């Protein structure tokens, strides 16, 4: 440009986001053009180093089976794989690095924007390692101790290799484990069966909704369109959306993890039997987690169907009516994204210990009411209805609305700035107000987290809060528990067995530092404690010192490796 000025952006100008192409499901899922179905996703921009290595994620392409290490360049601002052919996507380890980085980054970003703050991983550190080719095994898992997500691969007979890292949902599922572990680390401790199911079920929910929030996936799943891009009305009828579209996508997920997860997903597609809570096979974490997945997918359908209503002409004859496939897909993707945000937002309102399904319903409703007081589309009612149909009720007396409580907490002598960031200050607050909050101080008590959050409601206004969690612990023998609770412990349980009990609560403060909500699981809820004890004893979940309720006793880094080994005969093992 003679004499002029170059106005093109310099390559290293920071941007807020970069767009990257990823495989939308896994390489076996093809689009209309019979090529691998891909999508372009926006992820937060970060300064890049080799690895690739950004601010929060670090890809280490080391294969422990073969001992080879590949260092890939940092992700460029302009996607190198925007027009790459399928073969390159499948075989290029550089692309594999991009796939895991982008999928994990998109997941982190979904959590951060829903919760309105930066999120910590479950471990002490800022970089989550992503190992795209960790070992030759059809397995993928999160290892807390190694601060890593490990993705295996399956070597094939004829140079064809199946990579778990190329399955978008697998990467999202594992990333969710790392995030949930950061939010509620006590959920990995021995608890009631819902608790183990929560990690699996919620990770599946995030994976499914995340896949479903990509337009190309929904478009593809809706089925073939005519030359004008229109589909028949019956293709968006509720039954077809459930059995054809959603099931179709769900069945394609997790296939590479050969342990029957694909097959089990099918059961997530159908509502659980009414007596599921009584059936032994529903004690297996994956199977139980699917109850949550099934509920949330039904809500997704409800929202989608509602959002499709304006697109349908009521007076048109159903047989000939058509609608634009891209628009229908957009509504589905938007429904998934909204529901995902809603579910993640609820996490801050969960109690810190002893998760039960009803707690999730409660938490999502509470969080949603803060941000979207009106709920004009009735999403909350849909959620209540679907949980209710699955036999999950809102727990009673677990949440105290402190603002409306007869006796307000003391605030005198508290420093707002300290209260919103300092665990000791929050502990002082809890100590001073113990009686007013009905918190028994006889037990070991610790503030585990104090976290600010800022969220934008649909009206564009910011909802600032901060949330603190405290945990209480008590070590005693089964016999002592029997005396304290004045309730019978299982007959076959040795009264000398050491037992650890947990309780705790979540404190939600508003922007003035006033306590709004106290969500609690009291340690001295003896009936719950005995239910937990009975469950742990009956299922033989003793640690190596023959204690109950202390730890799960898995080898280092292996807590999640085994969880993915779903047994075909769930509920048949001892």
């Amino acid at each position: 440009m003679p004499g002029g000025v170059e106005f093109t952006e310099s390559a290293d100008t920071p941007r807020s986001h970069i767009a990257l192409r990823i495989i939308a499901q896994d390489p076996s899922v093809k689009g209309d053009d019979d090529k691998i179905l891909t999508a372009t996703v926006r992820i937060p921009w970060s300064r890049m180093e080799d690895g690739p290595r950004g601010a929060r994620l670090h890809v280490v392409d080391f294969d422990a089976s073969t001992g080879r290490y590949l260092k890939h360049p940092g992700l460029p601002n302009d996607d190198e794989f925007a027009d790459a052919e399928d073969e390159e996507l499948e075989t290029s380890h550089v692309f594999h690095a991009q796939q895991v980085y982008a999928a994990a980054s998109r997941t982190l970003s979904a959590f951060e924007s829903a919760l309105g703050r930066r999120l910590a991983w479950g471990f002490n550190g800022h970089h989550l390692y992503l190992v795209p080719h960790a070992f030759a095994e059809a397995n993928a898992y999160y290892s807390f101790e190694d601060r890593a997500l490990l993705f295996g691969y399956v070597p094939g007979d004829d140079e064809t290799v199946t990579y778990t890292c190329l399955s978008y949902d697998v990467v999202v599922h594992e990333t969710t484990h790392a995030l949930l572990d950061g939010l509620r680390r006590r959920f990995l401790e021995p608890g009631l069966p819902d608790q183990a199911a929560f990690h699996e079920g919620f990770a599946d929910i995030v994976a499914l909704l995340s896949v479903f929030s990509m337009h190309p996936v929904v478009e593809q799943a809706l089925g073939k369109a005519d030359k004008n891009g229109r589909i028949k009305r019956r293709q968006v009828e509720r039954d077809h959306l459930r059995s054809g579209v959603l099931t179709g996508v769900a069945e394609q997920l997790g296939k590479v993890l050969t342990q029957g997860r694909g097959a089990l997903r099918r059961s997530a597609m159908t509502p659980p039997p009414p007596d599921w809570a009584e059936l032994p096979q529903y004690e297996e974490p994956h199977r139980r987690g699917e109850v949550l997945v099934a509920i949330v997918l039904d809500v997704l359908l409800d929202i989608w169907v509602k959002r499709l209503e304006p697109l349908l002409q009521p007076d048109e004859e159903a047989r000939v009516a058509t609608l634009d496939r891209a628009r229908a897909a957009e509504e589905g993707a938007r429904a998934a994204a909204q529901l995902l945000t809603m579910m993640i937002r609820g996490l801050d309102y969960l109690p810190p210990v002893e998760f039960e399904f009803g707690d999730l319903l409660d938490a999502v409703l509470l969080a949603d009411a803060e941000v979207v007081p009106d709920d004009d589309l009735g999403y909350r009612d849909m959620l209540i209805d679907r949980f209710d149909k699955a036999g999950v009720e809102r727990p009673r007396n677990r949440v105290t609305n402190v603002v409306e409580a007869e006796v307000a907490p003391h605030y005198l002598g508290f420093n707002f700035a300290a209260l919103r960031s300092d665990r000791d200050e929050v502990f002082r607050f809890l100590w001073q107000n113990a009686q007013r909050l009905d918190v028994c101080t006889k037990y070991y008590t610790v503030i585990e987290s104090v976290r600010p959050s800022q969220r934008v409601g649909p009206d564009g206004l910011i909802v600032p809060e901060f949330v603190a969690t405290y945990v209480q612990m008590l070590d005693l023998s089964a016999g002592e528990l029997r005396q304290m609770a004045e309730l019978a412990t299982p007959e076959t349980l040795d009264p000398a067995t050491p037992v650890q009990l947990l309780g705790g609560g979540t404190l939600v403060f508003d922007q003035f530092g006033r306590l709004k909500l106290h969500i609690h699981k009291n340690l001295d809820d003896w009936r719950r404690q005995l239910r937990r004890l009975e469950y742990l004893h009956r299922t033989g979940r003793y640690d190596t010192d023959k204690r109950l309720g202390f730890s799960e006793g898995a080898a280092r880094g292996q807590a999640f490796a085994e969880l993915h080994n779903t047994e075909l005969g769930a509920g048949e093992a001892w």
Partner: protein
Amino acid sequence: MSTVERVRVRMYQVGFGDCFLLSLEYDEPLQDGRAERHVLIDYGSTRSARKDRAKGRMKDVAPLIREHTHGQLDVVVLTHRHKDHLFGFADDAGAATLRILEPKLVLRPWTEDPSLPARADGPASGAGAMVAGPDGIGAASARFARNLSDAQEAAGQLAARPGLHAGLKAAADEQLKNADAIALLDELATQQAGAYLFAGCDAGTANLVPGLEVTVLGPATVEQDARVARQTEEHTEYWMAALRASLHEAAGPATTARAGAESTVPVGPGPVRWLIGRLGEHKTHSVARLVRKLDDALNNTSLILLMEVGGLSMLFPGDAQIEDWQHTLDRIAGDAELKKKLTGIDLYKVGHHGSRNATPRSLHALWADRSDTLPPLTALMSTRPDVHGGSEATAVPRATLVTALKQVATLISTDDLDRGQAFVEIVAETTGGPFRLAP
């Protein structure tokens, strides 16, 4: 015509392993002049018994079997190809004794049939993939068996790798093909007769052991029950193929690198080196999982035999785990006769030495609901604690199962025998149970 009067079952102390002798006693001599018939079910050990118990070496057990059979064996059953069920066939003293006893029929699961691989070139998917041959076995089963056999070979290579983690080596060793033992069984089967069984087929014992009715409940072939191969629609035996390929990769030399992925950069000090240092342990865990899956797969080739003699019935499931049982569990729902039979058994050989996933809870539930009019159930468990399972949850025998079995049966474990007891012997009249300890 001779009829069976009495059934005697002996469980030998073999440490960790299985070795059972089923003896039928007739009221008068059969055609060959003998008034008894003997069926040996498994003949193995991987670890001698704990302190203060009879050692249970095969060289000690073999003479006892010779004595108890009076020198003639009618049927040998190998439930599946694991050392703790067949080591005796490879042991010098054990093999010599078996040659002398000259069993007339050798029964093994269908996956052991050496003629299978020859037919493994059928379609991998689509029409024809799941069509059984006249013997109930089709191409998908053949491929499954070939992959399984190949995976065992990989485990063998793995076990031979120098510097392998000791626990892993021990686990891999248990998956070896045990060629010597199989060679002896082949030899015996060739001299007399042999059969490879699958669910529903005739065991062919009617003439050899009059009065004994054998129902083969498992293993199913892939054609009979696709879950055997845990197949997906596109890829009929993906699971086993994946396991085989992964084990081969793990067994290969560490320098193997796939084309296009050779460039290895030196790793200097820093976070990457920290992680790489720790990933080695994950590889060990990963390979251990693969070996365990192979172990499970082999256990799931176990013959599940329901043996009925007069008013007595006995269940010998080898090491069948839930996947092997699944075919039968599904049938129970719609087959009242089978359900009644399994509810009313007199003897249960505890599956897989009392591991957590070899006695299906729904089977146990049948026994918990038994009517009081049925004679009490006896359970025989050949096991040794502290051999398998690193945690309470995976320990063999599993404490919760042992407790549950004691609630529904008289449980006799080899681990409860003392130094002077090289075997335990129970006996029952064919008019009806219960079995009782032989005086």
